């Protein structure tokens, strides 16, 4: 066998290895959900058919799915950067909430031309997201408050703060519905326009650009290498001359900007305002985490998985409309997928690993 041939085979095996685990996880979870649906007295094929049609069935639904996937992609990227660099932070939700809130305010109140307003709104969201992310980084670095606790608590704080502001300070002044807790509707010229005629807005394109940027950053720059090294082996990174403090804050900033922008896209392109609880209840950040996991932290894979997960929720709402099954079944599916992704179910390239190890051991001996 020539060397090229062997490389090809290796790549193919690696790809199969990457795909097999998520595939098995998705199939098992869909099967378990099918049992639940049957117990509830609904035909599985009717329910899943409605789900599939409601997710990717026609251009309207497809648009909806892609629109929904936008914040999920950004949340997934945020998780990916932090986790791959060794910081198990889950603050994407809080950053996204504040990002969406600030973007909505800037786009509504600032008296400048439309395009400038969009840019400023996105800038504000990035800054706020990064600042909130830095806060948890600072708590970790200065006070050793573990990321898990600080980020989870900060998520709740962000949500309640935004809720307070929309309730009492910046409540929609010209809203017809007095009970709707939301900020004012953003003027048409300050919204992210749709790419085609459907509901997919430019935020989706931006998200894809971010995916490309992220891939470049982590594959081709020394920063990406250093951050990955820090995640794999912090001691080695320190030995190699990486400043862990600088690395921590850089990673936190990029992660926060990503999540904050995700919130901004949702506010500027989808809801055109900040509605109380709009990020908290939809769980975009959590879906983003699941997407990153499904793709084993590969940025492009994260985008694909995000679209699938978004399809799961838009399909879920369609299923809820036409059957008796509530859309929370999708959260259950998501949970089971995550659980199954946490362990190695199958390993196609196992033999390769073993021989490699043996070779290494032999060399050492």
């Amino acid at each position, binding site marked *: 066998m020539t060397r090229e041939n062997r490389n090809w085979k290796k790549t193919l095996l690696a790809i199969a290895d990457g795909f097999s685990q998520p595939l098995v996880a998705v199939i098992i979870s869909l099967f378990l959900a099918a049992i*639940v649906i049957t117990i*509830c007295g609904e035909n599985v094929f009717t329910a899943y058919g409605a789900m599939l049609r409601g997710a990717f069935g026609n251009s309207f639904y497809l648009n909806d799915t892609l629109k929904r996937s936008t914040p999920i992609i950004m949340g997934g990227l945020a998780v990916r950067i932090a986790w791959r660099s060794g910081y*198990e932070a*889950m603050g994407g939700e809080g950053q996204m909430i504040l990002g969406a809130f600030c973007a909505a305010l800037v786009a509504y109140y600032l008296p400048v031309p439309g395009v400038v307003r969009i840019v400023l709104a996105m800038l504000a969201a990035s800054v706020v997201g990064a600042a909130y992310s830095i806060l948890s980084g600072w*708590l970790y670095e*200065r*006070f*050793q*408050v*573990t990321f*898990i*606790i*600080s980020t*989870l*608590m*900060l998520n*709740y*704080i962000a949500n*309640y*703060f935004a*809720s*307070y502001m929309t*309730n*009492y300070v910046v409540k929609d002044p010209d809203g017809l519905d007095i009970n709707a807790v939301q900020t004012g509707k953003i003027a048409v010229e300050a919204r992210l326009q749709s790419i085609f005629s459907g509901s997919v807005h430019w935020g989706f394109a931006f998200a894809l650009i971010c995916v490309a940027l992220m891939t470049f950053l982590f594959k081709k720059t020394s920063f990406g290498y250093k951050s990955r090294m820090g995640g794999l082996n912090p001691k080695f990174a320190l030995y190699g001359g990486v400043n862990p403090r600088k690395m921590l804050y850089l990673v936190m900033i990029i992660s926060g900007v990503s999540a904050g922008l995700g919130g901004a896209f949702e506010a500027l392109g989808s809801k055109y305002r900040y509605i109380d609880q709009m990020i908290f209840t939809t*769980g975009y950040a*959590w879906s983003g*985490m*699941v997407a990153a*996991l499904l793709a084993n932290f590969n940025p492009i894979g994260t985008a694909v998985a995000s679209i699938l997960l978004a399809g799961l929720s838009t399909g879920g709402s369609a299923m809820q409309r036409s059957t008796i099954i*509530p859309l*929370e*079944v*999708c*959260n*259950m599916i*998501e*949970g*089971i*997928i*995550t*659980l199954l*992704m*946490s*362990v*190695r179910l199958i390993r196609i390239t196992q033999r390769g690993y073993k021989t490699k190890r043996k070779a290494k051991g032999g060399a050492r001996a």
Partner: protein
Amino acid sequence: MTLSAEYLATVLNSTLREVTPLLLVTLCACVCSKVSVFNIALEGTLLTSAFFAFLTQYFTRNIYLSVLVSVLVAMLITFIMAFFIVHLNGQSMIVGMAINTFSLGFTTFMLSMVFNTKGTVNAMTPNGLLTGLTKLSIPGLRDIPIVRTVFNNLTVIDYLAFALAIVTYIVMYKTVIGFRLRAIGINKSAASSLGIRVKRYQIISTTISGGMIGLAGCLLTLGSVTLFTQNISAARGYVALAANNLCKGHPLGALLSSFLFGFTKALASVLQNTAAKQQLLECIPYVSTIAAMAIYNVIARRKSKALS
């Protein structure tokens, strides 16, 4: 609102009622952390067991059965968590988050299938009025005016929680099994070289301690109030993690740290009658959690510096 002894007693009473569920969950976290199983599935476990306590009460009207089912469900979920982390070598963070996501979806799903709502089900169900756990009134205490207010409306499980803290302490620190469990937490391979079956000990101990979350779940839905709302656990599981972090896994320390967090939670609900806005009050427990951990770590670091 006047600041009288009676009022302070009311605050203390609502603190106690906030502390006990938190204490039970913290105790489970203590045991888990002592055997080095990182459990963030506490939140989801609490939510699901609370739901099953309510559901069993709704269908059977048997309070003993409700408590039993709730405890068993909590043990089952904790077992699954431990099995995935210990036996299958899953990443604990991911396993925990998966269980939390699933639990929120599952309870909301069941809520809308059984009760046809996604919000709150109170004691007045279509199936008739539900009763919660019986409130104890202790003969000696109920005659003293202020003490009576402090211990008002507490259930058996509330008292049991404090007893369990002591029991956990005795088991973990005064018995052979406890020594073995702590040995696992300190050094797995050393423990296994002594012939301790590490994985088995880890799974069984976490599963049993998971039962305490079931009791906490009963307190949430059948305790001082009888109702279930979507996401009723409201991050108590995460707060318990923080409380466990503060007491470094010591069951008696858990009494103190969960009291601290229970007090902030009670403070938030007591202050609701004042002019302060509810949304900002809701932040108090979360802000104080972070603050308490930061302060604690600073003090601990100073101490270790002074020692060295």
